[in-house]
């Protein structure tokens, strides 16, 4: 039925709602929630159109969309689009194209999510960047 009614039921309690002390904006761990915050816009259950950007296995992202029609048939209501791209820029562009044609308001967030996922795979920098000044450069390349 109505997404708005469903939201009114779920907004304050649900199995995947995470409320914590001193945190005003609750989290919500549904699969189809892009930001994992509890909000009408990003909720994964209530919206007919929702996007999930996740890893299939480590390093292989995929994007899953909900078919906006058959909401009463959970088994056949998802469209999975694997992203066989480990390059963040390529993945982001693909995601942008897919999601802006599907639910434009989520496009930005989806791109951010996929970039975040792929960036988390890159090894963390343990040693700081080495610094160099313009004088050193000029000195080293002086003819």
């Amino acid at each position: 039925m109505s997404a708005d009614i469903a939201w009114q039921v779920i907004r304050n309690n649900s199995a995947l709602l995470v409320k914590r002390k001193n945190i005003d904006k609750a989290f919500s761990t549904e699969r189809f929630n892009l930001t994992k915050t509890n909000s009408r816009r990003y909720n994964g259950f209530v919206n007919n159109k929702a996007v999930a950007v996740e890893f299939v296995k480590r390093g292989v992202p995929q994007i899953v969309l909900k078919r906006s029609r058959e909401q009463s048939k959970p088994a056949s209501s998802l469209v999975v689009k694997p992203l066989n791209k480990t390059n963040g820029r390529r993945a982001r562009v693909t995601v942008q194209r897919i999601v802006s044609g599907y639910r434009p308001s989520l496009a930005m967030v989806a791109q951010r999510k996929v970039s975040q996922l792929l960036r988390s795979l890159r090894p963390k920098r343990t040693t700081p960047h080495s610094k160099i000044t313009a004088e050193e450069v000029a000195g080293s390349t002086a003819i």
Partner: protein
Amino acid sequence: MAARPLVTVYSEKNEATPTQVKLPAVFRAPIRPDVVSFIHDQISRNKLQARAVSTEAGKQSSAESWGTGRAVARIPRVRGGGTHRSGQGAFGNMCRGGHMFAPLKVWRRWHRRVNVAQKRYAITSAIAASGMPALVQARGHVIDQVAEIPFVVSDKVEAFRKTKEAVAFLRRAHLWADIEKVYNSKRYRAGVGKMRNRRYKQKLGPLVIYGQDAGVARAFRNIPGIDVLNVERLNLLKVAPGGHLGRLVIWTESAFKKLDAIYGTQSAPSELKKGFVLPTAKMANPDFTRIVRSEEVVKAVRPARKAAAAPKVHRNPLKKFALMKTLNPYAAVIREAAHKKQKA
């Protein structure tokens, strides 16, 4: 009113049969979590057993006040001597070993009468909620692979006699994931209930609602988390456990077909519940987005004001290299050299 689509009946092997049933009108009843929560709370009090303190607790003492003039408080004190107890205060709620304030009595009003109409409203709301996949998932059920919500199965399920058949059916229907959730949730209860025969707690799984019991109750009852109900005697405490909407329900075909007779439709009152007509919602069309985007509203509304030009966000060139390059093209050279130095 709201549309009533056709629901496919699935065989006990989870194959779609050609039979399709029109969605019973109950599923379009207004969803009222406030009503369901309140009525659930009221009804659940009806199973309470009286508890009280003993009538003589704290009163079985011959203590008497010492009166004034003895430099002690005027509370009644225990007579006699030769023991620590002598001279101690007695009887008051503030005294150790005295009676409590307002001793609990068994004649407290434990149970609640609930109006029949309210009970019926609550149950129709709960049934309607069980037909919304969003609410069923939000309650925590695992329904990702379930073929359809509401899930209607052929009447062969009613004739199951062995738990084995029931388990095989649940596995085939992709409902076993919900049962596994129940298995994984079994844990010790916190508190003294542990030693009062309530040692374990676990989540609830699906609810099986049948039209006629030819063995189904016995086949399913031993599977953890499962409850079994006859469609003519639905229990709000099982359809909306905890007062929360959206329990996963498995309907048998005959149970599903009986719903229109039991609860009535928009045009016909109930055949089995005297004088009962399905509740109507306050809003015929609760879809806010559609209302706001509808032709009538858009035509009547003035055009949106252009938002004030967003202030240009000042980004930090030290953090945003692309910006640094436009300010100082030599920065690219420096960075390249720094990278080379890093590698060296």
